[in-house]
């Protein structure tokens, strides 16, 4: 048979492409459920890590089922707020915001041609009073995102966990892999009154003999300037979007009620 004939070539390539496409579509469809479950458990374990319920490695070892069970035990309420800090709707407690949804909300916060609607950003409140909010932005090579947990007073950061798609291993990837970098966030107090809520800069950590108060600054990562700046912008954008909500809650908390341990600010409102 002459395999160099034009008609044969066209039919052959068409056929092989159609067969391969059909096979891949079938595999993708049949594995989608499992992949989504993995992604969801991964997202939840990131939130739990930010809220200091354990380390990411521990959750990974424990497996998906254990992570979901831990989350179901600890989560108190979840809802979305708009840019004015008003509650929009309650979220199903089993629902989490995947990076894909965060990306959509990121466009909504920033506006522009990719905007699909008014921003509706999630707030996750755990039973122990910690509040977790997501952040999302652009790193050097791809998106970076993560979760920041706040103490009950909604002023102090209790912990943070960040993830990325393709930052440089050993440099930018430290936002995810270096527990020391994430630990720097603990105890910081973002300044919600400013547009620049938080800074990741050179010399952000307090040193001996410093007079400047550096409550809303931490050290950037050496050799990963672009990733640090990207994460900084992501945090400014997202915590900025939550600013009204946090300020409102803080005001409620600043009443003497928060001093007494046994009293809950929410009841006082």
């Amino acid at each position, binding site marked *: 048979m002459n395999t160099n004939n034009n008609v044969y070539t066209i039919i052959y390539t068409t056929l092989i492409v159609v067969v391969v496409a059909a096979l891949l579509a079938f595999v993708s469809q049949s594995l989608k459920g*499992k992949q989504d479950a993995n992604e969801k458990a991964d997202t939840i374990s990131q939130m739990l890590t930010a809220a200091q319920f354990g380390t990411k490695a521990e959750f990974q070892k424990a*497996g*998906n089922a254990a992570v979901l069970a831990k989350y179901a035990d600890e989560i108190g309420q979840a809802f979305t707020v708009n840019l004015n800090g008003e509650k929009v709707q309650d979220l199903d407690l089993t629902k989490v915001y995947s990076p894909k949804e965060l990306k959509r909300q990121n466009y909504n916060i920033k506006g522009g041609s990719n905007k699909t609607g008014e921003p509706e950003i999630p707030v996750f409140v755990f039973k122990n009073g910690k509040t977790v909010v997501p952040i999302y932005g652009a790193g050097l090579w791809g998106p970076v995102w993560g979760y920041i947990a706040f103490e009950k007073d909604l002023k102090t950061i209790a912990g943070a966990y960040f993830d990325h798609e393709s930052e440089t*291993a050993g440099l930018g990837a430290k936002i995810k892999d270096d527990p020391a970098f994430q630990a720097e966030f603990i105890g910081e107090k973002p300044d919600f009154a400013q547009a620049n809520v938080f800074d990741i800069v050179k010399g952000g950590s307090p040193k001996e003999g410093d007079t400047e108060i550096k409550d809303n600054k931490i050290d950037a990562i050496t050799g990963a300037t672009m990733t640090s700046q990207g994460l900084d912008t992501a945090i400014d954008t997202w915590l900025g979007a939550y600013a009204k909500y946090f300020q409102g809650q803080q005001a409620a908390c600043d009443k003497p009620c928060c001093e007494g341990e046994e009293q809950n600010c929410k009841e006082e409102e």
Partner: protein
Amino acid sequence: MDAKLKETILNPIFKGNPITVLVLGICSSLAVTVTMKGALVMALSVIVVTGISSLILSLLRNTIPGRVRIIVQLVVVAMMVILVDQILKSFEATYAIDKQLSVYIGLIITNCIVMGRIEAFALGNKPWPSFLDGVANGAGYGMILLIVAFFRELLGSGTLFGIDILNRFGYVPNNLVILPPFALILLGCIVWVQRSIQKDLQEK
């Protein structure tokens, strides 16, 4: 087993190793050798992709139109790579490692070993030897990956497969080892060792 088949299997492991002798697949061998686990999953993925693509294309070899040969190879290899990636993503045990390897699984398609062996071997040989040739080349690649990863994880993190080996003795992990340049240094050392054993590889 006849001598030719044996040669097909053994040649890519040492004498004609795709990384150290043919210098193919360097990019990913620098990128995914920070941990043993990553290197192992990458090695197995490449073995599966090279083996099965070689098999499929060898089966099709008499029907493929010569002028679109490369495109047909590309379609088959791309299919295998996507399948491997999808499967890694759907298991709990491999999900995290797939995330860590991120783009490098997808980039197996650009790994010259795969297309190189199909073009050079699978299109001119019967399915069974082609399959073995693909698997052996993947294994030759994987072996170098594991050797490099062994030193990089041991010296760079003080662990092997995530299990603490050196840190308990007060070892301070060396950050340079984690960075890609050190993988290149290690590869150079491996080539050096191989060339001093195998004199016929030395240029006059």
